[in-house]
């Protein structure tokens, strides 16, 4: 009989900083099961529920040529029948026990979430195991989910927001998988076969690429046992993969997709900054000031508050594994698009040239640090954060260090990073609508779905 050792490395008593010495400890524990599966755990016995988030590295960016949407389709199907349970039986079991099990595909990761009452945890983890290791891909659910994806694509086909997003992606990454839609196109989704689905699972689900975060009513011991029961059936190693580095194209382009709608939707983007870049935190603070800060951002003030030009105007950083963007958007009536764009370009350039003011920087840091505890508003959000921390190699003590990382951004750094990042001439712009007085820089790229 083998001795079973459960290693629990008590990570850090993490004080969630609030300012005036009102700290409450959040303890993140690194749990390693006897079989060697690692999960980060925050025990919380307030409510009898358990929240688990997981991710496998490798997502839609690995979809084979002509099969864009494969990862997404797998995510919709592995909970539609697994092991001995066909689709309705599997779903029925989830519903009977009030277990929530969902999967989704991003560009760089394949995600799963499991939510269960403590009393049903054995069943919940077992259904998760089946979904990951023995998905059935029976004909009926495959065709049903395919039809749902196609219906979704159709629904979004003429939606100006979707058109803008797809078009901008293609302009920014014309020759890279990041330019493909995660949900695919009607053609590519039609072409996915059951064999493709099986190959994805066989190649992408491995213990070495698996990341797990758990929050809730479970002890490290009990979790360790469930981790082994659930994940040891997975192959030890996922298939290797490689994704090329992606530098965005399209600098300076303005593309108009003519649509007969009263309000034009505008999206714009340029190269951004990677998550592990030492300047990332400074960029995050600067972007908050420019367009990430909701009601207090420069874009909000100039475009919406002062002039009433838009309901929604924003910018955000989008770091991905193999490339990064900073993206923004605005929607306004056709007659005012040119004016709105002009203002946005001016603000973009102004930020790049002069950076933020000292007051703006202080206010931004105060908000970003003060609001950090608000992220701990539900178990699901927290288990998701635990996965994110591992994906980005932020360290188990990240929750403790994060506010200091924001605080240390000084004005010189902020200005240097603003200069490094924001260049209005680099922006690729897509306008979907019927904008007055705006000239495209070149013809619209051919639509493909």
């Amino acid at each position, binding site marked *: 009989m083998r001795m079973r050792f459960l290693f629990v490395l008590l990570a850090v008593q993490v004080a969630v900083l*609030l300012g005036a010495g009102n700290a409450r400890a959040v303890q993140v524990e690194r749990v390693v099961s006897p079989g060697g599966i690692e999960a980060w755990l925050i025990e*919380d016995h307030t409510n009898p529920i358990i929240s688990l988030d997981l991710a496998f590295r490798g997502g839609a960016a690995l979809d084979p040529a002509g099969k864009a949407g494969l990862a997404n389709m797998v995510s919709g199907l592995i909970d539609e029948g697994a092991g001995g349970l066909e689709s309705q039986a599997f779903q029925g079991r989830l519903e009977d026990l009030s277990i929530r099990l969902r999967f989704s595909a991003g560009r760089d990761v394949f995600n799963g979430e499991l939510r269960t009452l403590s009393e049903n945890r054995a069943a919940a983890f077992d259904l998760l195991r089946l979904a990951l290791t023995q998905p059935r891909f029976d004909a009926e659910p495959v065709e049903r989910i395919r039809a749902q994806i196609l219906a979704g694509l159709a629904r979004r086909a003429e939606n100006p927001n979707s058109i803008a997003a797809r078009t901008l992606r293609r302009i920014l990454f014309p020759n890279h998988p990041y330019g493909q839609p995660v949900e695919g196109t009607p053609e590519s989704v039609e072409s996915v076969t059951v064999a493709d689905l099986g190959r994805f699972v066989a190649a992408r689900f491995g213990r070495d690429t698996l990341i797990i975060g758990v929050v809730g009513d479970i002890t490290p011991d009990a979790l360790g046992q469930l981790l082994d029961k659930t994940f040891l059936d997975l192959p030890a190693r996922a298939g290797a993969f490689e994704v090329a580095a992606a530098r965005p194209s399209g600098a300076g382009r303005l593309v108009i997709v003519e649509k007969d709608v009263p309000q034009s939707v505008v999206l714009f983007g340029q190269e951004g900054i990677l998550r592990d870049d030492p300047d990332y935190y400074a960029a995050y603070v600067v972007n908050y000031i420019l367009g990430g800060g909701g009601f207090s951002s420069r874009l909000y003030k100039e475009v919406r508050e002062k002039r009433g030009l838009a309901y929604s105007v924003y910018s955000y950083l989008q770091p991905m594994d193999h490339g990064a963007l900073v993206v923004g958007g605005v929607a306004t009536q056709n007659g005012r698009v040119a004016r709105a764009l002009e203002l946005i370009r001016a603000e973009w350039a102004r930020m790049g040239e002069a950076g933020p003011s000292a007051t703006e920087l202080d206010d931004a840091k105060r908000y970003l640090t003060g609001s950090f505890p608000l992220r701990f508003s539900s178990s699901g959000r927290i288990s998701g954060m635990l996965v994110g921390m591992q994906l980005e190699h932020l360290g188990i003590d990240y929750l403790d260090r994060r506010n200091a990382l924001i605080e240390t951004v000084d004005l010189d750094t902020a200005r240097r990073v603003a200069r490094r990042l924001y260049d209005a001439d680099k922006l690729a712009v897509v306008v979907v609508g019927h904008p007055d007085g705006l000239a495209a820089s070149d013809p619209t790229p051919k639509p493909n779905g």
Partner: protein
Amino acid sequence: MFNALRTGRPLAAIGFWLLPAVFLALAWAPAEARVFDPETFTLDNGLQVVVVTNRRAPIVTHMVWYKVGAADEASGESGNAHFLEHLMFKGTKTLGPGEFSRIIAQNGGRENAFTGQDYTAFYQTVARDRLDIVMKYEADRMANLVLSDDEVLTERDVVLEERRSRVDNSPGALLGEAINAALYLNHPYRLPVIGWAHEIRQLNTETATAFYRKWYAPNNAVVIIAGDISAAEVRPLAERYYGAVAAHPVPKRARIAEPPQHAERRVTLKSARVRQPSLSIVYLAPGYNSPDGARAYALQVLDKIMGGGATSRLYRGLVVERSLAASAGSGYDATVVDGSEFSFHVSPRPGVEIDRVEAALRTEIADLLDGGVSAEEVAAAKRRLVAQAIYARDSLSTAPNVLGRALATGRTVADVEAWPERIAAVTVAEVNAAARAVLRAEHSVTGALLSKPTS
């Protein structure tokens, strides 16, 4: 009836609020049901304060619900309630425009607001030691709002852009407005919360100020606080800030009534921008406060049976077994001041004509009315409804949203706490009777969203 609109703050919307309640069940038969276990007290000026303690993180969510919404607007002033909600951020006697939000942000708080037919709500989530600040400034704008034409007219443009984003750009949303307008012959629920564009353009400082003076008062509001705090800790803060706001008389909410309905209606929107057709059938239904409001619990069980998940009748029948629909479901929400709606919706699989899907849906409805629901279906639906509710307790924002909606629409804390028992008590006979009473063609509108060939 999904007429609630989030304000011009597209970011940071807190939580969902469709779940009627939460229940921490230790056994299936909820002998001593507790849902949120709230504490409540009322100030001398009539403001009710409700506190739900949740110590998971040192933060609190603070919500102010005014018992007034779009359905209380004067004729010709559709959109006024939602407009006022936007304008509440534009300054008071002591704060300049936008300063409220700046102060919240400086204190690390997140905030937003929204308007529905029956309520207008403002909320912030902050660290627990900043609660006094949000209460102070929320109480300030409850009494001391100051508006200038400059701010008002600029914000009116923002609201028109919001309407363009949410409605004018969306064939589905345009159809939704047509459905509501056809479903209610008289009652103001027929009007969009955001307002008709031509009426929005007529709103101004006077219309907003008049609405504010008429309806915004501590005796017409509820404050809900959830998080790392107790009622005993909240009380002195509430007395200090909200207690200082003077009560004033507020009219009774008396909406013009619906007459009896005799004619089944159909509205169709065809657009070249629709690539995926869809169809809904919406029936008038009682809400909690209706004379037959006791049916509301049976209708929630019916909603779960018919369209509440992958094993529901509509999904199983239309999507799985007959492969006609890509999606199929139902909807019902009892938390309204006046009447409500019970709805079905379907969308066909690519390649399937929508007429076939409509026919299949109507067959399901007919089967329901002929054969009723089974004991197994009712038991499973009740179990799932009550058990699902445990999750809602996990998120900080659910309690204030659920309690706020209930109290702002004329329900009590006791009603919310009793929800699991009342659901558990629903019988097969009650579900069948509710279905027969509600699902009458002459009380319905069918709305179809169709493609239009471009050539």
